[in-house]
């Protein structure tokens, strides 16, 4: 139980958070040799609505596949932050998009207010890489996975022709964290 580490990526449907979770879990599981389980929860909407994707990381076998005491939470919308921040551990890491999330949950957390959507839109030029920018920031803050492993996993999953774009998004995200 002690090595169990829980990550939740939350935002709106269509922001690519399920894919983000898949990439993170794949990086941990195939390239770091640890156990990882990825699950998701979403509504019937194709876009909009609060959506979340979870990754459990452990050196041991993972039984319950969902997050209950979150170590790292990403929120890309206020709605997701309101709905999904209750399970964040005291002293857990909260990465919130600086523009979208104005009201942070009360409690003792290590908060990173980062311009994730802005970086995707202005610096990479494509809003849809926001999930990859966020993954870059997560890779910086997560001990369980190296930047290189995440980059390898990103390149394995993104559509052909978008590799350079996604590599840039990942690097910019990584650099958002000091």
């Amino acid at each position, binding site marked *: 139980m002690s090595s169990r580490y829980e990550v939740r990526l939350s935002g709106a449907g269509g922001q690519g958070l399920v894919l983000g979770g898949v990439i993170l879990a794949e990086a941990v599981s195939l390239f770091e040799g640890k156990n990882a389980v990825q699950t998701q929860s979403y509504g019937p909407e194709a876009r909009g609505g609060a959506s979340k994707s979870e990754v459990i990381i452990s050196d041991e076998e993972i039984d*319950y596949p*969902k997050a209950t005491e979150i170590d790292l939470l990403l929120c890309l919308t206020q709605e997701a932050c309101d709905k999904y921040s209750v399970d964040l551990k005291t002293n857990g890491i909260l990465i919130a998009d600086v523009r979208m999330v104005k009201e942070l949950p009360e409690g003792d957390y290590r908060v990173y207010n980062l311009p994730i959507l802005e970086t995707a839109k202005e610096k990479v030029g494509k809003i849809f890489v926001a999930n990859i920018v966020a993954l870059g920031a997560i890779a910086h803050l997560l001990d369980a996975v190296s930047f290189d492993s995440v980059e390898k996993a990103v390149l394995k999953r993104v559509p052909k022709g978008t590799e350079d774009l996604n590599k840039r998004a990942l690097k910019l995200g990584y650099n958002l964290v000091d």
Partner: protein
Amino acid sequence: MSGKDVFYQGNEACAEGALYAGCRFFAGYPITPSTEVAEFLARRLPTVGGAFIQMEDEIAAMAAIIGASLVGKKSLTSTSGPGFSLKMENLGFACLTEVPCVIVNVMRGGPSTGLPTGPSQSDVMQARWGTHGDHPAIALAPDSVQEIFTETVRAFNISERLRTPVILLTDEIIGHMRERITIPPEGELEIWERPRPTVPPDQYKPYDISEGIIPPMADFGSGYRYHVTGLNHDETGFPTNNPSLVQPEEERLMAKVTENLDLIQKYEYFEKPKARIGIVSFGSSARSSRAAIRMAEEEGIKVDFLRLITLWPFPTDAAVQMADKVDMIIVPEMNLGQMIEEVQRSIAGKAETVGVNRVDGDPITPTQILDRIREVA
């Protein structure tokens, strides 16, 4: 030779397992949360000489896999609650005509269209009794992505060898969950084929049981001709209502399962010395149960665990083994109490039972089960 490690979703593992088992035909109609099985096979089947058809609905899809199986192809369909209901009539047809096929039901909230994206385990009894009439039923319920792969292979094997439909019951959580799995190299897992006739076409009788209770099955299009009907039939396949033929035939259909329990029934029993409490669970609720049992042990409460992989035919002996030892059996399931009734029937009062039930679209949490353990400890 070692296998290939991949990071797969449960539904993808199911489709990969089907290919490994030799499935070469899929017909289905998309429905959340099972669609990825179809999506995967739509991509892969044509590359191995198989065929994929998206039918106009689930009824037609079930009919199509029966047809494909009759020409000798191992066949699969996948669906969820509402689609599973639609397949029931043809499922009964496959039972009576003894056509091997595998039906995957990735369970979601119901009844009716219910909760399309929410998990559930509420089709346990439908898997047993959904189609009318006395009929054999086999249902397997894996609890991990790796096990979805191996149980899909086993579903095909059992279905082929016994000439009867097999249902794979998963749920939205493990269907959509992703884990690293190892795809075994070809030849590592045994693959079984249906019995085929050794007599020439002019001597072939489709329901001839002189060699054993599983009659050899000829592929349509290979020179053998016979009649296939949902009416009770004699050994030629033509309808009969002769009581002296109908009764033994109905009993034989059931005997195919009851005489092969060793082949079908699979479960894990984790025993703790002196435990007075037991848990019986399956599928994704088994994962929650395992976590709860670990948490209880940290508090000094010992709990035995029976994880069912085969739900039907129900592993009665395993439930009795638990009831002979413990005083209380907890049955966590994402429905309002279905498998618990089968546990009660099996143990006939030898232990108390209590459920942990949830149907709101969220999984049963380990804490919920732990609370119940504390209550009865």
